[in-house]
């Protein structure tokens, strides 16, 4: 069974890094995986996409993801300019980095049920743990918790592999904090 994830962000927010960490984490959990960017010449700030797939069988197809099982949105302002929710599967989930509530973005969702949308204060958590407005690792932790398709241990391990010992540990902590937050541990927030 193949699952597909589409990540929306802006150039410089680490969407491609996020997709590749996700792919490697899927692999660690015993899956085949694939991750690729939207192959852009985008510069910092421009809307970008990155894609990830995982499956228990080797993945051959290479087309971009039009009907994702999961969508991750790094920056809520994208909702105004990019149809980020487009093609989401009926039982799909959209994870949006924002402190706003689902009600605030209903207009932009174009008929997607509110239950599919998870508004998550990734920036707040990232600022607290990392003291930096970089939310990709935090969102990975949240994604692990809400989707259950990738273990938080794999995500943390691959974050550490990617960012090296000091920065990696800190980012892994951000992911764990986000994971706990989704699971109900909102202490400190």
């Amino acid at each position: 069974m193949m699952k597909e994830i589409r990540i929306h962000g802006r150039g410089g927010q680490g969407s491609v890094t996020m997709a590749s960490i996700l792919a490697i984490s899927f692999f660690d959990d015993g899956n085949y995986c694939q991750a690729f960017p939207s192959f852009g010449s985008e510069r910092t700030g421009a809307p970008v996409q990155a894609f990830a797939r995982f499956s228990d069988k080797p993945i051959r197809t290479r087309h971009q993801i039009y009907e994702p099982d999961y969508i991750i949105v790094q920056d809520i302002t994208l909702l105004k300019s990019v149809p980020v929710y487009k093609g989401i599967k009926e039982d799909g989930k959209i994870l949006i980095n924002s402190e706003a509530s689902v009600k605030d973005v209903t207009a932009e969702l174009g008929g997607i049920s509110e239950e599919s949308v998870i508004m998550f204060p990734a920036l707040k958590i990232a600022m607290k743990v990392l003291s930096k407005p970089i939310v990709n690792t935090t969102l990975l932790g949240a994604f692990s918790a809400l989707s259950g398709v990738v273990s938080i241990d794999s995500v943390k391990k691959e974050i550490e592999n990617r960012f090296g010992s000091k920065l990696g540990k800190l980012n892994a902590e951000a992911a764990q904090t986000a994971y706990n937050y989704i699971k109900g541990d909102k202490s400190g927030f």
Partner: protein
Amino acid sequence: MKKVLEGSMAIAEGVRLAEPHVISAYPITPQTHIVEHLSQMVADGDLKAEFIMVESEHSAASVVLGAGACGVRTYTATAAQGLLYMEEVIYNIAGMRLPVVITVANRAVSAPINIWNDMQDAMAIRDTGAVMLVAENNQEAYDMHLQAFKIAENRDVMLPVVVNVDGFVLTHTFEVVETIDDIEKVRQYLPPINMEYKLDVESPYSFGTLGEPSVYTESRYNLYNAMNYSRNIIIDSAKEFKDMFGRFYGSLTDSYKMDDAQTVIVAMGSVLGTIKDVVDELRESGKKIGVLKIRSFRPFPEEEIVSALKNVKNVIVAEKAICPGKGGILSVEIRDVLYKHKINSVNVNGYTLGLGGRDITPRNIYDLVLRAEKEENVDGEFIGLSQQYL
């Protein structure tokens, strides 16, 4: 060991296994990650090579030409405009019978400037005398580089080998790649380069002499024969690779679900993955359809194509390049070999898609199959045009 690697990293790792002595390159998207990884390997001491970052692709190819003539193993990589800029030198490398390996991260050619994937760049060098292989996925790209050196350095081949890898679609995609960790086994598969003639003060031959009308034709004839002969070596290298490392992707071509196929999609490179998935679905709905993968574009797999397609009704060629003023390139060549073998029962339709990074979706492939059953011997038909831009 299985790992998740970016395509460019897989290629760089594959090249590292071959232990090239001299690497030279000039950066161009989407080739850059490959040479970045290689330069890092040299900086870290993981690869003992001279890495020369030059001022142009023309010089990158010239540096490996000069080094190659000294009898050492050489490598370069490029894409698109860079490949076209190298073309003059690639003719020269082939003409001088030097076994350079070149990765091309296939990309569209300007104008308009477009950094995304198609295979038009490769078509520009199809007559240079370079062996041209095409990788389907990153595992094959990784393995194909070792095979490429082996083919290039065969004493009866002695030609440059170009490994085509779809830019971005493969070079920037992370996927599972099984690496080869036994370097001794690699060295057994690919022994040290051993050139009979090289620039050497102990036996000072002259290379690249003036070939007057009295000998130029013979020189080209010899190259032509070597290219034909390389078919055997491509096949042997693939087989030997399978024996030693267990992986096989076909020799000059590969067949997928071809046994009773009435309709066959012919393609090269990364699009094959999407095509195979679609073919699986069509098979489930009872359609007798298969896939013929072109793994070696030069030398052209004439016999393999004829034997694979002679009893087929519809052949669909899905191509990421176009020849203005003619039509398809691969499709025309396929029709040509069928004609040559007096097979006129096959309906060959050639379609152009995926130009300049246009995503190739499963829908596109379904459309091809539907169209091909209604159309007859079309060539270079464009798929998925946006009417508002015409």
